[in-house]
């Protein structure tokens, strides 16, 4: 029997809220799917849409961008820009008829270890339903 599909999810986590939330999920010994590879950035506003696209075109089954809740940004308003950039990215991907469901923007605070686990679990399940990213096997990208 073929091995069950294990998604590969890239997770950009902002240092102050979401990465701390992920750590808290750890210290609280919660279960989080191992499919997510966390990538730490200082602020979600560092996450260049081209980086996300790159990950996506390289065959990431899902890309999660997580930052402080609006209003809580450690750098005042970075996450508001993140949200606009992400909206454009999602539109472009959607507009080209690609699977924009593979891209997710979540706000996770430093005290939301539980929520972080939920977000990743949910996203992981969703990606499992969608299946592997077909771009991964396309050679003529």
């Amino acid at each position: 029997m073929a091995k069950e599909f294990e998604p590969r999810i890239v997770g950009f986590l902002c240092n102050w809220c979401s990465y701390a939330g992920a750590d808290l999920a750890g210290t609280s010994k919660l279960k989080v799917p191992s499919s997510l590879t966390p990538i730490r950035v200082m602020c979600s506003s560092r996450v260049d849409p081209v980086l996300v696209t790159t990950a996506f075109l390289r065959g990431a089954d899902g890309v999660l961008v997580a930052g402080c809740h609006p209003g809580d940004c450690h750098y005042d308003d970075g996450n508001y820009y993140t949200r606009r950039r992400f909206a454009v990215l999602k539109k472009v991907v959607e507009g080209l008829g690609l699977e924009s469901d593979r891209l997710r923007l979540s706000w996770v605070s430093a005290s939301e270890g539980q929520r972080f686990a939920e977000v990743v679990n949910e996203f992981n399940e969703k990606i499992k339903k969608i299946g592997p990213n077909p771009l991964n096997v396309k050679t003529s990208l």
Partner: protein
Amino acid sequence: MERKIGVYVCECGPNIAEKVDIDKVLNAVSSLEGVAVAEKYKLLCSVDGKKFLEDEIKKHGLTHLVVSACSPKQHEQTFMEVCENAGINPYLFQLANIREQCAWITEDKDEATEKAIRLTKAAIRRVRYHSSLEKKEIECNPDVLVIGGGVAGIEASLQLASSDRKIYLVEKNSSLGGLITNFEKTFPNMKPTSDIIKQKIQDIAENENIKVFTDAEVEEVIGFFGNFEVKIKKKTEENNVVEFDVGAVVLATGSASFDPKKTPGYGYGKFDDVFTALEFEKMNSSGKISLKNGKAPKSVAIIHCVGREEKGYCSEICCMYSLKFACYLKDKIPGVKVSHFYSDLCIPGKSCQKFYEKTTEKNVDFIRATDVEVIKQGDKINIKYKAENNSKNSHPVDMVILSPAIEPTSDTSRLAEITSISQSDGGFFAEEHEKLGPVSTSTDGVYIVGCAQGPKNISETIVQSEAAAGKILSSLVPGRKIEPEVKTSQISESFCIGCKTCISVCPYGAITFDETKKISVVNEVICRGCGSCTAACPSGAATLKHFTFNQLYQEIVEAVQ
């Protein structure tokens, strides 16, 4: 020089060892390009562990270090110090978090091991693209510009002035002291205001480290924390522009009060004997409380919250100074009737309620009222209002005192622009952080104190002045250099096309535009390294040190392998 990466996996006792097959991890990475050595250790953050790492780096002549252990929030700094001690640049190091974000959250050992391998490989890929970063040190000027010669500015100046720190105190009026010089007494202890302010004005005059400019206004403040160039204009004299350098700026420009003419219902400006709080303070200080006709009032109404609706905030001190007015009146005019018209009594803090109770003992009426209107009836003034039980009542008096809201002074926007800080609720100067940064602003080295930051009483004002002093004294030490953030953004001169997108997204005004070269330039002293400009820059001219595209890209590649 050839890259020699050392990879060290921490067992963290059972925490990682039990969940992750560390030998498997070591096998998976030992043959990767550039990896000179891959080892495990019981507990790398322990004294022995750090010693072990240090020896390893020296023994193998490592150029880069990768540690797979716990969260960077736990021990990134620890291992960076190890690097420094062992003589390699601390930024040629990467920590893979295989505890909090792997071992502790993954049930299945194979999965955990597989993830640990991924995270470690990602760290190895990444560290190959790290470059050494060096701490910078910037000379700074310890002198301080204080704008506003009221109690806030005076306090700040006195706190800060010293033999090795010169203070420039700029006041737009002709004398120091500000608003409170109009007050006879202060609540809640009814101490003479002169006790607070007189001596201090004296001290300022006698302090040779404080240069006072009265009748002067600040025209220009350019530069950044530690190095501001200031231009002020003296209104009275010829060749009236003075220039000097400072390291920090304190905005203590105080407040104005709401103009009751904007709410005609209160009859201010229309009827005699309707006074604003400030007018009444002055009248009281002058020694005689009287009506326009020279007689003493037999009955006085004090109307609270004038302009609160319009301003959209509670000015905090109006209830208290209104109570103070009742005391003035009761003490000076035997038998005078005093009635307060208020909606909510706001007397926060430990010492206010007692004052309120004392005042009520002087049989002062407190009427909770809405729809208050002041009309003229014969020679009397009549207060029409809706009482708590919704009945419409009226209340004749000789004199009305209006307690208007506190609002920003007229030059607030101008000064905000000059110092490139923003304005927040109600138009007051915006603090850097509502809670943790009450006196600092989005511009490093520019501080806001007193009512310029928001309505507050005298002691809160003084506390803020002392707070700003604390900030400055601790960060702007004479003879000490400033050490700015290392992981800042930088903009490539050859790639920048001058679209200024970065400038509009930078929350700290750390990026300026070079008009001659037509490109953006990062001031690394101000930049705090969020990287928003880097993501926003269309031409890839902006990069965030230690979080470059390629460094993050390497992690991505591993994640999707």
